[in-house]
């Protein structure tokens, strides 16, 4: 394992301190907890947004704490959902009477831990709602399974629900918006390399020099299948086909696109991917309203990417373009 760290057992703690030291104008840490909350003074009465999950997905989620996005981010151990007491502290810290929306990615652990926290908060009289992001089309949806995973599409939920809250919408409206984003967004990813959880010390799977893993999540776990590496154009086609199969998009529909790097892929490759994505979108007659390219929901040092497609309407467009000012996402 080659990593620039000190002690594998202490990476989350040191990272959180490093984030606060880098962005003191944006975030502060709840003392004694792995929770980052907004540091900027604002007296605004607004719905508070809380998200989080395992660490190793940086800048998710601490990087999105700030004006127009999250009010708190809870960090678990690497790839391990945070515990209910941590989430509960975050909820208490950011609620200002307007209620709290939990944005949860659909993993058994995240769902259970966040919901237990929500139960604790409700017991103390805090209004709590939650939404569960499940954008990953690699996993077939079924009422009999855990359902789809939540991956990079979550960033759109943070951005758009965050804008709704900042604009002063109430809890049920913000929840409605978040759910609209969730029902309109689809993602799928692939990787060239595995990644190594520091405490585990070895990669989660192995790939030959000419192989890629397709349809994988963001926790270093294997994907739905393995293939020989192909040119970027063919990889993009495969992923977009899966996405298009799953969401109803007609000619002239407007979409937002995110090309998300998994942590170890250079921007050069993400832009080459974007070039292909745009071509296929154009062929399909879709109108790309906004594109986001970069490392937003990563999987440690994994090389690979995911594509997310969000179908837009006027309401979502306005909220997507609303001002945001966070360490990892800014919209002027």
């Amino acid at each position, binding site marked *: 394992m080659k990593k620039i760290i000190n002690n594998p057992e202490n990476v989350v703690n040191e990272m959180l301190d490093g984030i606060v030291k880098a962005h003191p104008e944006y975030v502060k840490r709840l003392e004694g907890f792995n929770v980052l909350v907004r540091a900027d003074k604002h007296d605004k009465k607004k719905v508070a947004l809380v998200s989080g999950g395992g660490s190793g997905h940086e800048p998710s989620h601490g990087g999105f704490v700030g004006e127009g996005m999250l009010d708190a981010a809870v960090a678990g*151990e690497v790839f391990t959902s945070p515990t209910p007491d941590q989430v509960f502290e975050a909820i208490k810290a950011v609620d200002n009477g307007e209620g709290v929306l939990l944005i949860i990615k659909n993993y058994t*652990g995240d769902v259970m831990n966040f919901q237990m926290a929500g139960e604790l908060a409700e017991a103390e009289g805090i209004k709590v709602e939650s939404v569960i992001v499940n954008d990953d089309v690699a996993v077939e949806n079924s009422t009999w399974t855990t359902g789809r995973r939540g991956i990079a599409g979550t960033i759109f939920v943070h951005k758009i629900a965050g804008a709704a809250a900042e604009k002063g919408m109430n809890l049920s409206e913000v929840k409605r918006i978040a759910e609209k984003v969730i029902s309109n967004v689809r993602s799928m990813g692939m990787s060239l390399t595995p990644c190594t959880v520091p405490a585990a010390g070895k990669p989660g799977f192995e790939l030959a020099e000419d192989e890629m893993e397709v349809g994988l999540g963001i926790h270093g776990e294997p994907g739905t299948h393995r293939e020989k590496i192909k040119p970027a154009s063919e990889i993009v086609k495969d992923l977009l086909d899966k996405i298009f199969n799953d969401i109803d998009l007609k000619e002239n529909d407007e979409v937002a696109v995110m090309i998300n790097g998994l942590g170890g892929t250079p921007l050069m490759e993400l832009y080459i991917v974007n070039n292909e994505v745009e071509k296929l979108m154009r062929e399909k007659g879709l109108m790309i309203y906004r594109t986001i390219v970069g490392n937003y929901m990563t999987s440690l040092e994994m090389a690979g990417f995911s594509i997310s497609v969000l179908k837009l309407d006027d309401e979502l467009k306005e909220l997507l373009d609303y001002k945001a000012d966070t360490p990892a996402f800014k919209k002027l």
Partner: protein
Amino acid sequence: MITRDMLLKILHNIAKVIEENRQFLTDLDAAIGDGDHGINMNKGFKAVEEKLNSLKDKDCGTILKTTAMTLISTVGGASGPLYGTAFLKASAVVNGKMELSSQDIIKMFEEAINGVMMRGKAQRGEKTMLDALIPAYEVLKNSIESGKSLKEAFQDAAKAAYEGVEYTKTIKATKGRASYLGDRSIGHQDAGATSSYLMIKTIAETLD
């Protein structure tokens, strides 16, 4: 009958066994999950272990509830809330008791399993810890009712749990992280079922 001291000894031994199997459980989880089950469980039971001393004079309910809350606030992931809920439900059965009768134990086990099923919305046959826990519970109950000693009953239960673990190799996961792999999960044993088996086996070995 399990005395409070025996309960503490069992928890202590479980912590030891989980620590010994940290890498093994992690490797099992890595194959079809995210490779943290052993790490998380070890963190949780180490925290439990550190509290055992302060629980020496407490009743069984308190001991189990403290175990539950400690697991919930340290393990994380899926197994934290699940095992936490299991211990929490079991603790409620024996509130204030200084020792556990065979009937208590059957009831605790039953409640624990119900808690896991409720929290995780899973059934037997979905390649989870339930595939070890449910058969173990059924055999335990049977063996106790047919007059075997608790130790023998837990030995039988451990065998059933082991078979449950073996069974998980043959099926596809439909709950938890391994479910994302679809058919690729077949052939691998479930990490959570394995940790459940290890706990039951440890109870059997600790009892005298």
